[in-house]
């Protein structure tokens, strides 16, 4: 089995699973396992066996469940320091068997959980609480509320187990925020002290402490963070002591940045599935408002002579979130304006960390690409900032040297950005140069993957493959479909399905192939109905209409334009 066949088999397995054809999915995983065993590909085997176990659990295939649990257990026994993928699989196993599974030997699952937990230092997640039974408000109701209130309701529901009747888009929120962690002793102490200080009307001490707790909650308990955000807003509405502006830890500044991060993450999570478009827009508006408030506050502080050395870096970080919100609100001109100061700094490499430079340049290139401007130079600058010399590199050994440097410096995230920027650069061209760039991006990702968390690797692979799909590579569209399914990005899933269907339509020769292509485009349109309303859905609908009008003429889409619209980062 070569790489292309293996990829096709992976795609087939995932597609079969999505369709509910568990027997076919199981057979495909089994075949792949044999091939991966031949190459002693440990990480790949762990992932394959885990997915196969999920399929077996869904099918209720007891003998296979037992065999796969035994294989996973023995693999956990063999690995020493776990790779990010192994750690992720271990966490998933702990979550999966946190409670007994009907029909599965409880002692065996307990043993597997013990082995898996041992690989991740015994940090087992606390299972989510069951649903409260209270009705979850509709999206229209949530749209009518203020963004912080809506965030609180959504995040509280997301902290609980999924209910059959709740909207599907809540799953994206759960994935974005992860499981709730118990209140740590330090956070508990800070919260207690904050409560006492506030009860005594000592806001000068209470407010900064509560901001500390808020920062902790953002990472560990999003619902609690949303609640404390409201508490902080209430205090601010009643008026804060003037002296707080001079507290060295800048609590107001931190409070705004943490609020920004909370609502940004929520807005991004709400932006992929159908049904939450209005709620997502309200959250994006709030992000834009809070980001602008932070910029105003910082400028005011600087004008008073209270500027800080780290303001430049923070302005860039806030600018990134603000620009993303403005893009979501279709205000590309303002987004470009917000980024402009940081872009100038990034171009002259004036930031302490090149990761920030590459993030800023990537955001700028993305905005330009959306606006239809020529973004080639900006994408090239983003690649150069993230992975110097990689675009000119020819040969796998030079790429390997670049990866070596990146891993030695411990800047894997920057390298990942570089790979995505390389895909962006490929999108600006066509032909052999674009193919070479995409090939380089894939080779880099293959070398970086062992250092990346599986979801990050999947997201980057998805961006690269969607870029290739846009240039007419049908196999890449299918790979993107698999990655989008894993990361749960509905919009990317619809876009990949659209690319696959449209390419099949363009390549169709004869009535049979045309009928199959029409079916694939129809699948894409159905998938797009489950994705958030927007350009991808419109593109899928246009493509569905076009394929029903008649056979393809040339390589262009309906009306001479490509049917698949561009999407952020893809």
């Amino acid at each position, binding site marked *: 089995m070569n790489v292309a066949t293996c990829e096709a088999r992976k795609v087939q397995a995932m597609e079969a699973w999505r369709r509910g054809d568990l027997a076919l999915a199981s057979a495909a995983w089994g075949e792949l396992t044999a091939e991966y065993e031949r190459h002693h590909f440990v990480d790949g085997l762990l992932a394959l066996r885990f997915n196969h176990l999920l399929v077996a659990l869904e099918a209720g295939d007891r003998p296979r469940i037992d065999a796969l649990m035994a294989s996973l257990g023995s693999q956990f026994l063999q690995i020493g320091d776990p790779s990010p993928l192994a750690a992720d699989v271990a966490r998933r196993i702990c979550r999966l068997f946190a409670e007994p599974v009907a029909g599965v030997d409880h002692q065996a699952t307990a043993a597997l959980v013990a082995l898996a937990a041992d690989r991740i230092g015994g940090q087992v997640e606390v299972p989510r609480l069951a649903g409260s039974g209270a009705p979850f*408000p509709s999206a229209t109701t949530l749209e009518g509320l*203020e963004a912080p209130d809506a965030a609180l309701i959504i995040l509280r529901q997301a902290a609980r187990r999924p209910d059959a009747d709740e909207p599907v888009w809540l799953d994206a929120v759960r994935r974005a925020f992860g499981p709730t962690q118990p209140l740590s002793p330090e956070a508990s102490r800070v919260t207690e002290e904050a409560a006492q200080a506030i009860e005594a009307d000592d806001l000068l001490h209470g407010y900064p402490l509560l901001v500390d707790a808020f920062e902790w909650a953002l990472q560990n308990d999003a619902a609690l963070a949303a609640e404390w955000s409201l508490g902080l807003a209430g205090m601010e509405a009643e008026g804060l002591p003037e002296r707080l502006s001079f507290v060295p830890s800048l609590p107001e500044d931190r409070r705004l940045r943490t609020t920004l991060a909370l609502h940004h993450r929520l807005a991004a999570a709400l932006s992929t599935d159908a049904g939450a478009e209005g709620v997502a827009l309200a959250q994006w508006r709030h992000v834009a408002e809070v980001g602008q408030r932070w910029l105003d506050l910082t400028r005011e502080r600087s004008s008073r002579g209270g500027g800080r050395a780290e303001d430049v870096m923070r302005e860039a970080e806030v600018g990134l979130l603000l620009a993303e919100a403005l893009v979501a609100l279709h205000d590309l001109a303002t987004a470009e304006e917000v980024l402009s100061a940081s872009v100038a700094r990034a171009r002259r490499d004036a930031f302490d960390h090149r990761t920030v430079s590459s993030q800023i340049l990537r955001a700028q290139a993305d905005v330009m690409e959306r606006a239809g401007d020529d973004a080639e130079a900006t994408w090239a600058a983003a690649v150069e900032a993230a992975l110097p010399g990689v675009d000119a590199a020819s040969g796998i050994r030079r790429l390997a040297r670049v990866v070596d440097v990146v891993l030695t410096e411990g800047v894997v995230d920057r390298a990942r950005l570089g790979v995505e920027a390389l895909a962006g650069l490929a999108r600006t061209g066509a032909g052999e140069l674009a193919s070479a760039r995409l090939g380089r991006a894939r080779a880099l990702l293959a070398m970086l993957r062992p250092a990346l968390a599986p979801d990050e690797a999947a997201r980057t692979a998805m961006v690269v493959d969607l870029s290739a799909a846009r240039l007419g590579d049908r196999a890449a569209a299918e790979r993107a479909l698999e990655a989008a399914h894993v990361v749960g990005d509905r919009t990317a899933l619809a876009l990949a399905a659209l690319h696959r269907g449209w390419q099949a339509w363009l390549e169709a020769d004869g009535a049979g192939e045309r009928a199959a292509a029409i079916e694939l485009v129809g699948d894409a349109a159905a998938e797009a109905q489950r994705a958030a309303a927007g350009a991808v859905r419109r593109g899928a609908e246009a493509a569905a209409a076009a394929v029903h009008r008649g056979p393809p003429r040339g390589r262009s889409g309906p009306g001479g334009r490509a049917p698949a619209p561009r999407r952020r980062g893809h």
Partner: protein
Amino acid sequence: MGWRFWKRRSSTEVEAAEQELSADDRAQAEGELEDFEELSLEEIDAALDVPAPRISKFTFERPPVPAEVDTEVVRSMPATAEEPPHVRVERVVRSKAAGRRSGTDLRSRGVGPVWVPGLLECATAYRLAAEARADDPAGAREFWSAYLELCPEDADAWFSFGQLLLGERRYEQAWTSFEAAHRHDPGNGLAAGALGFLSQVRGDHVAAATWYATAVGLRPGCRDMLSSLAEAQDAAGRTSDAARTRAELERLEAED
């Protein structure tokens, strides 16, 4: 509409205040809800112009249940009545899929599939290992074979493998490699030139001349190819062709 602005209170006070919310208050709120339902569209728009209700309070405790969800505002707009059609489609799809699935419900456990890295990763490792073993041809050969099994369409790799085999005088295997390189990248003049060289080694000068001619066609300015072509043409007994090739070679050298 009975909303509360957030106020700093202890958790005990909050609970007490909630209990104090009398039946009269609730009746009044329900009355307001009925009034709201009777409003015209314009009046509803006007009503929605006021700031949205604040529905949270702050207790310094981990929230036991999201009681705020059950507010007057939420009750006034039941979720089921406003569900858009695509959500129903989703539900149908989900229930159909569930029909085929007899075992554990993974969604309720919050567990999904993990991304499986592809074999490209192994292939990359094999290739790097092969290229790093320049002084160990036997080891390099194994890694090249493993790589090419995974990436049989990589013309560059076939060419590099061919070079390695040529260095070891494994002419037959080298021929297969260069042939594969030429098949996967017919525009690569170097592979054609290598096949010309191997034809010469085999003593097949006619084939050598043909392969060199192909290589010269693909790399017109390459003097090494022209020189080899002239030699092969001489050996094949095509002296007039060889003379023309040498003339071309001299012209190129004169230009430089």
